C-alpha cells in the first residue's frame, strides 16, 4: 500500500542517482578491484583471490548473524568474545581424531544459542539496551574464558578442523562453500519466509508488529540466537584457519561485522537490509585490507581506512534516495 502523502510517482527509468544508490557498493567494489589490479599484478591471481575469500568466510558468517540483530534495531558486541570462547571450548575436548568434530560443532552451537538467548532475553524482556547487554556479555565471556584457560590455552584440535577452514574440494574452499550454504539458508529465512517478514516488521515498527499479531520479544530473542550461532560457527572456522587457539581469536570481528553490515546498507535504525548486500560489504572490506597490504602500506592503515569507511558508509546510506 502506497503512503498517501507520496509526493510524486516514482519514475520507471533508472536515473543516475538510483543506479548509484542501488548498485553503489557493487560499483565501489569494482573500482577497488580495478585499482588493486593496477596497483599490484598479484591481486587478480586466482591464488590471491581465493586467499582473500578464504579469510573472508568466517567474517561473512558473523555478518549474517549481525545483520539479523541490526534488523531488529539491535547490535551485538559480544560476537568476537563468543568466537574466542567457542574456540577455547573446541579444545576442551582434547580431541585428536576427526570423530569429535560433530560433537565440537554441537557443543559450540549449544553454547552460542544459550549466549544468544541471554542477550536477547536481556534486550527484549529486561529492556537492557543492546549495547549494554552485549557489552556485558562480551566481558563476562572473556572472564570465564580466561579463568578456564588460566590465560594460556592449549591447542589440541582434530586435524579435520584445519581442512574445514582452509581445505578445498574441487578447488573451492570448504569454508566458502559453508558460507554460501549458510547465506542461502538464512537468506531464504530472512527474505522469503514468514519469520523473515516478522523480523522486518519488528525492526520497522515493533508496536505495529505487535498489533499485527507478531510477538516482538520472541522475534528479537530469536534474532540474537541466530546471531550468536552464526558467530559461534564463524569462530570454529576461524579457529581452524588460524590453527592455534588464543584467548583473542576473532578480536576486532565485532567492529568489522558492523562495518560490513552498515556498508552493505543494513540500517542501524532497523527494518532495512539484505544479507547478500551485507556480504558484499565483507568483500569490500577484505579487498581494502588486501589492497593496503599489496600497496605496501603499514597494516595499521587498515584501521584508519575502516574508521573512515564506517562513518562514510553510514552517512551515505542516510541520504539514500530510494
Amino acid at each position, binding site marked *: 500500500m502506497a503512503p498517501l502523502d507520496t509526493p510524486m510517482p516514482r519514475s520507471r527509468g533508472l536515473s543516475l542517482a538510483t543506479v548509484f544508490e542501488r548498485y553503489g557498493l557493487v560499483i565501489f567494489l569494482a573500482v577497488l578491484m580495478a585499482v588493486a589490479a593496477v596497483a599490484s599484478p598479484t591481486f587478480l591471481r586466482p591464488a590471491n583471490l581465493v586467499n582473500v575469500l578464504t579469510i573472508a568466510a568466517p567474517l561473512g558468517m558473523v555478518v549474517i548473524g549481525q545483520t539479523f540483530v541490526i534488523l531488529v534495531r539491535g*547490535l551485538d558486541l559480544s560476537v568476537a568474545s563468543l568466537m574466542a570462547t567457542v574456540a577455547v571450548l573446541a579444545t576442551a575436548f582434547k580431541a585428536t581424531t576427526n570423530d569429535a568434530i560433530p560433537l565440537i560443532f554441537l557443543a559450540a552451537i549449544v553454547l552460542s544459542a544459550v549466549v544468544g538467548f541471554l542477550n536477547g532475553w*536481556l534486550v527484549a524482556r*529486561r*529492556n*537492557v*539496551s543492546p*549495547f*549494554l*547487554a552485549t*557489552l*556485558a*556479555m*562480551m*566481558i*563476562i565471556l*572473556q*572472564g*570465564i574464558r*580466561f*579463568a578456564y584457560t588460566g*590465560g594460556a590455552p592449549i591447542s589440541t584440535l582434530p586435524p579435520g578442523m584445519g581442512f574445514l577452514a582452509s581445505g578445498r574440494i574441487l578447488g573451492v574452499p570448504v569454508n566458502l562453500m559453508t558460507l554460501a550454504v549458510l547465506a542461502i539458508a538464512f537468506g531464504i529465512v530472512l527474505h522469503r519466509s514468514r519469520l523473515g517478514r516478522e523480523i522486518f516488521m519488528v525492526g520497522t515498527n515493533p508496536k505495529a508488529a505487535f498489533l499485527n499479531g507478531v510477538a516482538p520479544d520472541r522475534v528479537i530473542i530469536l534474532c540474537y540466537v541466530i546471531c550468536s550461532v552464526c558467530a559461534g560457527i564463524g569462530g570454529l572456522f576461524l579457529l581452524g584457519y588460524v590453527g592455534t587457539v588464543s584467548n583473542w581469536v576473532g578480536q576486532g570481528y565485532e*567492529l568489522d561485522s*558492523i562495518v560490513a553490515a*552498515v556498508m552493505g546498507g543494513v540500517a*542501524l535504525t532497523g527494518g532495512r537490509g539484505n544479507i547478500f548486500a551485507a556480504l558484499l560489504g565483507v568483500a569490500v572490506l577484505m579487498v581494502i585490507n588486501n589492497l593496503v597490504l599489496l600497496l605496501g602500506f*603499514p597494516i*595499521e*592503515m*587498515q*584501521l*584508519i*581506512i*575502516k*574508521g*573512515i*569507511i*564506517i*562513518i562514510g558508509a*553510514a*552517512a551515505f546510506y*542516510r541520504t539514500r534516495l530510494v
Partner: protein
Amino acid sequence: MSAIAMEIRRNRLVMSYLIVAMLLVVLVVAGGFLSDRFLTWRNVGNLFQQLIVLGMVSLGQTFVVLMGGIDLAIGSLVSALTVFLANFLEWRPDLVWLALPLALVAATAVGALNGLLTVVLRVHSLIVTLGMSSIIFGATLMYRKEPGGSVPRAFADVAYAKIAGIPVSAIILVAIFALAGLWLQRTRSGRSIYFVGGDREAARLNGLPVDRIVVLAYALSGLCAGIAAIFLTARTGVGDPRIGVALTLQSVTPVVVGGTILAGGRGGVLGTFLGVLLVTMLNNLLNFVNVSSYYQWVIQGLIIIIAVGIHTSRRR
C-alpha cells in the same frame, strides 16, 4: 514537563543514588571484614590516587550520555594523548607548560570533531565514535607501536603529590565533579544538555541551539579524556598506544551504575562519582581477597546487567 513529573524524576534519581551509596557502605563494611589491609589509611590513599583516570573518562562519558549519545573514542584518545605527551616530553622535558595545554586543546578538538561529525552527517554517535576510535588507534599505532617516551621527574610527581595526606589528584577530581554538577544543575547551558538528551526534537522546537549543545558535550568529553591522559602519563611515565583500549568500556560502567540512563536526559554526575568509587573499591577489594582479574571481568559484566536491571525496573 510539569513540576510534579520533574519532582518524581528527581526523587527517583535520589533513590538511585541511595541504592548505590548503600552498596558502597556494604562494600566498605564487607571489605573491612574480608581483609585487614582494605581499610588502612595507606590503601584508601592509594585508592583515591587511582580514582582520577577512571573518574575523568567517566565524567566525560556522562556528559555525552546525558545528551543522548555515547562516546566510544575515549580509550583511543587517551592512548594517543599519552603517546603524544610522553614522546613530546622526552624530546623537550622543559616544555611541560606547553605540552599540557597542547594535549588538552587537542583532546577537546577531537571531541568536538566527534560532535561535529554526528551533527553534520547525522550519523548515530555509536558509529561516528567507533569509526573515530579506529582512526585514532590506527594513527597512533603508525606513529608508535610499542610503549615509549619518558616524563620529567617533576611531572611524574604530580600523580603522587599529596596535600595534608590527601592525594592532589583526588582533590582535583572532586573539584571538577562539583563544578560539573553545579554547571549541569544551575546553568542554562548545563540544563540544556538534559533537554537535548530527553527529547532532541522538543529541544529544537523550544529554540535551543541543539547542534551546538551536542558538539559541546563531545568537546567536554574530549577535554575530560585529556585530563585523564595527563594523570595517566604522569603515573606510568610512558606513552602506551594500547593503554586506553579497556578505558572506553570501563568509562560506561560507572555511568550506568550511577543511574544515568543510556537513552539520555536522566542521571547526573553524582551518580557517576558514586559509580566510580564503587567500581574502583570493588576491584581493589577483589585484588585483596585474591580474586583473579579474570573473575573481575565477569563481575564487571554482571554489575552492568544488574545495575541496568535495578534502574530500569525502577523506571517502570
